[in-house]
């Protein structure tokens, strides 16, 4: 649905996006990750035709952003980063305006407006002036605007920015729901969503693309990315403080344990340690065997999946 070919954007001397190439398939929610200034928004602005690329191109639903910008915009629902809207309008007036520009009129316009008001839970404030709304409502008003024409492609730039945890949850659910539903014409939907909230990627995205300094530094499913963490398959143990020394000595002998670090723990008379494996190897079974052989009991035994924030930091700062 979205194909990006060597897309680049240069602002004066600053290379904001550098030869970016990627694809987003049907029914996919691609999480677009990166530190601030990495080029996420710039890429999205080029896809929606707001910024012309310096070089390279992209296709959205088969239309080139260079040759058919109007068709591209027709197939995209776009939520810009700052979630702009016209403050002096009522919520429903604003949505009617966008619907009309998108070619709806009369009852079909009102039906679309009602549908997105329902979808984004804005029905209660439909007759309220946008500038009097809280940030969360304004964000959702702009999100509602992007859904009006039931677009096959959604491009959302930090859709949960500035929302409280409940609203974040609702918006994520909405994005997930949107990606699973087909459009009225029966087309599958594609979502490209940028964020710097990592839990969001695990919560909603089928794949994640990490960029830094305008270039791709990581790509994969959340699980694949987690597997790159040094904490992937790490084992966390809690046991009696008096036994900690001897157990640690025994565990250090296990082939595949790279490091054992003690973890601060508040329980009285107990200590906690974390066994970090060499390059993500599975060590849990070996650890269990050693504990059994030494006849030690532990009060906690858990395997870590890895940490996305650590992967993110490693990928975006190393080099």
């Amino acid at each position: 649905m979205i194909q990006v070919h060597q897309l680049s954007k240069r602002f004066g001397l600053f290379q904001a996006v550098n030869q970016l190439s990627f694809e987003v398939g049907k029914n996919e929610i691609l999480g677009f990750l990166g530190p601030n200034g990495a080029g996420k928004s710039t890429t999205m602005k080029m896809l929606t035709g707001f910024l012309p690329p310096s070089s390279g191109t992209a296709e959205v639903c088969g239309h080139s952003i260079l040759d058919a910008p109007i068709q591209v915009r027709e197939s995209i629902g776009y939520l810009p980063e700052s979630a702009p809207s016209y403050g002096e309008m009522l919520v429903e007036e604003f949505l009617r305006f966008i619907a009309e520009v998108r070619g709806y009129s009369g009852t079909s316009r009102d039906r679309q407006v009602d549908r997105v008001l329902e979808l984004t839970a804005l029905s209660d404030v439909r007759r309220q002036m946008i500038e009097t709304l809280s940030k969360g409502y304004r964000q959702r008003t702009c999100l509602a605007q992007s859904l009006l024409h039931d677009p096959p492609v959604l491009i959302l730039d930090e859709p949960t920015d500035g929302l409280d945890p409940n609203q974040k949850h609702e918006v994520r659910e909405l994005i997930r729901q949107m990606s699973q539903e087909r459009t009225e014409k029966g087309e599958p939907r594609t979502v490209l969503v940028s964020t710097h909230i990592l839990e969001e990627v695990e919560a909603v995205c089928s794949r994640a693309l990490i960029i830094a300094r305008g270039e791709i530094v990581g790509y994969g499913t959340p699980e694949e990315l987690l597997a790159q963490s040094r904490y992937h398959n790490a084992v966390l143990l809690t046991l009696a403080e008096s036994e900690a020394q001897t157990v640690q000595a025994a565990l250090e002998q296990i082939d595949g344990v790279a490091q054992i670090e003690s973890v601060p723990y508040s329980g009285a008379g107990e200590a906690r340690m974390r066994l970090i494996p060499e390059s993500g190897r599975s060590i849990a079974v070996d650890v269990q065997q050693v504990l059994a052989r030494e006849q030690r009991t532990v009060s906690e035994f858990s395997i870590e999946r890895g940490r996305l924030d650590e992967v993110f930091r490693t990928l975006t700062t190393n080099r």
Partner: protein
Amino acid sequence: MNGLNPIFKRELLAYFRSPVAYVFIIIFLIANAGCTFLLGNFYDSQQASLEIFFLFHPWLYLFLIPAVGMRLWAEERRAGTHELLLTLPVRLGVSVFAKFLAAWVFIGVALLLTFPMVFTVHYLGEPDNGPILSGYFGSFLMAGAYLAIASFTSALTKNQVISFILSVIICLVLVLLGWGVFSNALNAIFPVWLTDALSQFSFASHFEAIRRGVIDLRDLVYFTSIIGFMLLINVVVLESQNK
């Protein structure tokens, strides 16, 4: 022309939603009356015509029209809504024209509200309605030319004050070109043929004939081409802004 109508309606609504609109209309009406009766000595002229009323329009518009037009694009950029507008499936030229049209209609409404002047001259005498109609028509057309300049300068910046000052300066030059004192000053520097040519670009001299009831095609072409040219470079400016 997809999108023309909704963008036009939204823009017009935005004018009437803001208190600035009402302040503008009131100032416009007071300034018109002030110029006509105080500066123009309307009663002393002993004429039942609106010539004096229209005489001041090039000068009034100099400040009032940039005040209407300064927000057109500067405000969109400040609020970030241009990102929304320019990513809708609408041609940029259509957006520019729709917004211009809305502001123009707004000015037209303000102009129509000067209708008591028409009643006044009818009460005082038997005016010729031809020049009155052509005066209103010409004044509206000239307002469009001022507005197109203001719309263009508004696209240059996100600061409305800068936009206002720039358009006042451009409009001032265009008004002054036709003013005798200014032409004489230019004559001292430039050859006569050049100052004559330049004075052809003046708002005031093109408005002069229409104000007196003579609708000359050349004057209409002049104002419409100013509008067309300014809106065109308005589009070019917006298009090149992010490159």
